[in-house]
Each structure stands twice: as C-alpha cells, then as structure tokens.
C-alpha cells in the first residue's frame, strides 16, 4: 500500500506519462527535453555549535559536494538553527560572519610554533605540538607546584598554568576537562560552555 502510494502519486522515472497533465491533453515533450539538459547538485545541511562564546548557539552549515572520496566539499552558507532552544535561529554579528571565519586566509588550521628568538611561525605535527605542551606543563608544574601552604596544611595546588576549554564542548567533555586538570592540581581552568 505504502509503496503503491508513492509510485502512483509522484512522477517516476518514466517522466510525466500517465499523469493528469498528459491525460488532459497537455504535452510533456518540452519539459522532458529540458530535463535532459539538467543535472543535479548535491548539498548537505549539518547541525553544529557556534565556536565563539559560551552561549553555544546552534548553527546549520550548508555545504556543497557529494562527499565522494576525491571530491572536496565546500561550506557555502551558515545560518542560525531555528530549532535550537538557545538561539532559535538567531545569530550575533560574529556568528553571522562565521562563513568568513571558516574561509579566512589567516585562519589557523594546524599547530604552529615560533621558537624563542625567531620571528617566524613554523608548522609542526600534532604529536610534536602535544609533546611540547606536555613538556612545558611538566617543567612549570615541577617548578611551581605547592604541596603545603604557609601554615603547613596540604593544598596540592598548581596555579601558574591555566586552561580554557572550548564553547562547543559537550557535558562529557566538560567533565573530562575537570577530571584531568584537577588531577594535576590545576585550579585556573574554565570551560567556555560553563556560563
């Protein structure tokens, strides 16, 4: 029944033959000829969260391309998600300019380092970047970790390094951020999504 409905009620691949248009004496020939000249363009709409601030507005990103292996898909439009309970389709000027943010020539797309004494940024791998960050954190923690305060109470704190996590984090990511950083004794950290 369900399949029949679909087949019966819509123009199928046979074109317009058998439809009321043809049966009432109108010609489908021009339309059929025109259809031969057309091809389809595929777009997708993807829900995401605006990366800017702690409000966490919902966005819909429109992209072009068929997601085939060798084809690059391209974001062509970004709008507020009307069904998102936080922003209900609205965006602030920064959010409304997200497409330019995505396509900005100065957008940071990979880790870079400017060595001490150098005036140039050098691209490095994620592995290298994380190793370097870990080494810096360890050195700073070893140097500045406070186990006891002046009164001799145990405090186990590390306040010379801080961390700020992203706005689009889920509850779970926020929980993990807290667990990992607290386990190091870090106090100065925050989640953008907290507010």
């Amino acid at each position, binding site marked *: *029944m369900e*399949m*029949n*409905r*679909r*087949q*019966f*009620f*819509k*123009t*199928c*691949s*046979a*074109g*317009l*033959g*058998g*439809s*009321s*248009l043809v*049966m*009432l*004496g*109108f*010609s*489908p020939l*021009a*339309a*059929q*000829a*025109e*259809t031969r000249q*057309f*091809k*389809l*363009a*595929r*777009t*997708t*709409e*993807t*829900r995401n969260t605006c990366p800017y601030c702690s409000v966490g507005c919902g966005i*819909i990103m*429109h992209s*072009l391309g068929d997601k085939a292996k060798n084809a690059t898909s391209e974001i*062509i*439009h970004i*709008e*507020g*998600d*009307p*069904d998102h309970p936080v922003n209900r*389709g609205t965006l602030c000027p920064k959010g409304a300019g997200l497409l330019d943010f995505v396509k900005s020539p100065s957008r940071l797309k990979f880790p870079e380092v400017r060595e001490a004494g150098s005036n140039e940024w050098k691209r490095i791998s994620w592995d290298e970047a994380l190793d370097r960050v870990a080494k810096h954190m360890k050195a700073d923690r070893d140097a500045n970790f406070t186990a006891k305060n002046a009164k001799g109470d145990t405090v186990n704190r590390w306040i010379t390094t801080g961390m700020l996590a992203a706005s689009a984090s889920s509850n779970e990511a926020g929980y993990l951020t807290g667990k990992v950083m607290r386990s190091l004794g870090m106090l100065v950290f925050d989640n953008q999504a907290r507010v």
Partner: protein
Amino acid sequence: MSDDTGARPATERMLLDPEEIVARQAYDIPRVRLPGRDTVFRPRAARLRTLAETSTIGDYLRFVATIADAQQQQLDSYPALPLPPVERMEQNRKFGMPPLNAVSLQRAPAWRTILRSLLTTVLHSELPAPLRVTLEQFATQVDDYFEAQASKLLSANLQGLNVAVAPLLAAALQVYFVGMASQFTLEDVPALGEASLCPCCGSRSTASLARIGAQEAGYRYLSCALCATEWHMVRVKCTQCLSTKDIHYQSIDDGRPGREHAVKAECCDACNTYLKILYLDRDPNLDACADDLASVALDVLVGETGRPGCGVNYMLVQGETAAP
C-alpha cells in the same frame, strides 16, 4: 524509564491539555498554521501564472491557475462550510486523530455542488477542444460516481480512479477542506507531536516550506496537499521516517551558487524517499502547490536515481505508467 508513563495509552501521552497548549503559545512559534480564506487559492493562481511565463509546462500551469481562480470563487461563495458533528471531531481529537480525518469523514453534499459549479466555471474559460470534451463528459456524471471517485482519491486507491480529471475532483475537495479548516482555531487541532500527516485532515504534504517572518524565520512547516494547513517539523530531518541521519539535498544545477537554490529535494537514505523543501528566504513568493508543479524536472531527475518522492500534489496525479 518510569513505569507510570509506560502504562498510559499512547494517545494520552501525545495529547496536551488545552491549558498546556495555551501556556506554550506564549513562547513557542505556532506549531500549526491554519489556512485562511484568502491565503491559499488566490496567491496560488498568481504564482502559477508567474511561473507559467518561463516554464516548459506553462500551458498546464495556466490551466491549474484557472482551476485555482475557480476554487477561490467557490470558497468566496461559502462563508461557512458545514463541519462534521462536534462529537465526532472531539472523539477524533481524543484518540489522537485529525478532527477532519479525510479518509473517514462523512462529506457534506456541499462539496459536490462546489465540484459542479467549479466545472462550469472552468468550462467557461478558453480550453483546448479535447480537454473541453473530457471535462464536459466528467461534468455529466452522477453524485454516486463523484462520491466513489472522491473516496478513491482520498484513500490513495488508484484502482478505477479517473486520473485525467482527478485534479478537478481534488480541487473541489480542497475548497471543501480549506473551507472547514479555516474555521478552526489552534485549540481545535490536536498536538500530535512530530507527524508526517496533517494534524487537521490526516493527508500527506505536498512539500515543506522554510518560512520567513519575524517569528517563524527559518522554521520548517509541512504543507498539506488537501486542506493547506501547515505544521511544524524540525529542519534537516526526514519528514517520513523522522531520521536525522544521512539527509542530503538535491537541486537542479543552474549555474548559480547552491545556497541560492530555492527548491530542493530533501532526500533520506534511511527510507530512500524525498520531499521538496522550498526556501522562502530565497524567494518569498514560493507556493507549495505551484512551485512543486513547476519544478517537475527535479522530480524526474531525482526519480531517475531510484528514489521515489513521498509528496502528494493533487494537481498532478500520476496514474499507473506503462514501461517507457
């Protein structure tokens, strides 16, 4: 999780109390947009004529515009079409059914009067000779024939349905149902949650519209093929199987950037169907029925990829097709 909700009948859980509905209105967008007496057929006729200027099925669009004019004329001559008995509508609502359930509704004889007058009006316009003969023949049919044909059309039973004149038959039924639905207020329409079928008459939709306007900007509504009621459904979601995975859009590549395409086919890989979505922010004059007809090339192209559409447009009924 709780046994309490599990034990209640499904219909009871779906329905909101009148107080709840009123309370929600204060901060919600309207979940249903009921048709107005001037918001359906008149704009549709105008839109059809505009589209006809550049369309390869322009003749047909102009013919459907003639029908739409006649529909408006008929609707204007009935200030209040008779509604079904109040108890019947109340019972439907109570059990989570649309109050004007098209398949089971006892139609008032008025719709046949509308059909006969509508045919007379259309026959007064300039028509090609073979079309005139078909319509004149149809106009001589008896009431029982019209009733039987209407029941077949509304229950999507194509066995023995006269496909050629189905748009005329449907046109009269549309006037009848729009005339009834336009008397409703929001409280008359049950909140059925996210539904593929019209909450007012239980029919399928022609297409969905991403609306514009201060309150509704960007929100998507499905447009009923019969009573022109529009009901809200979340964007980027299959309107048939409610899947949100693997939704993509196909439009006709006319050389313009994809974000400017006003008519797209929203395709779902989960149930392998599509329904057109019309973006009013890209063209504020879009009409579900008219633009669905005018974009028939999109139906053909998407259909050729092996994906059937799930929308219904009574102005273009497709009968059984012989293999090409």
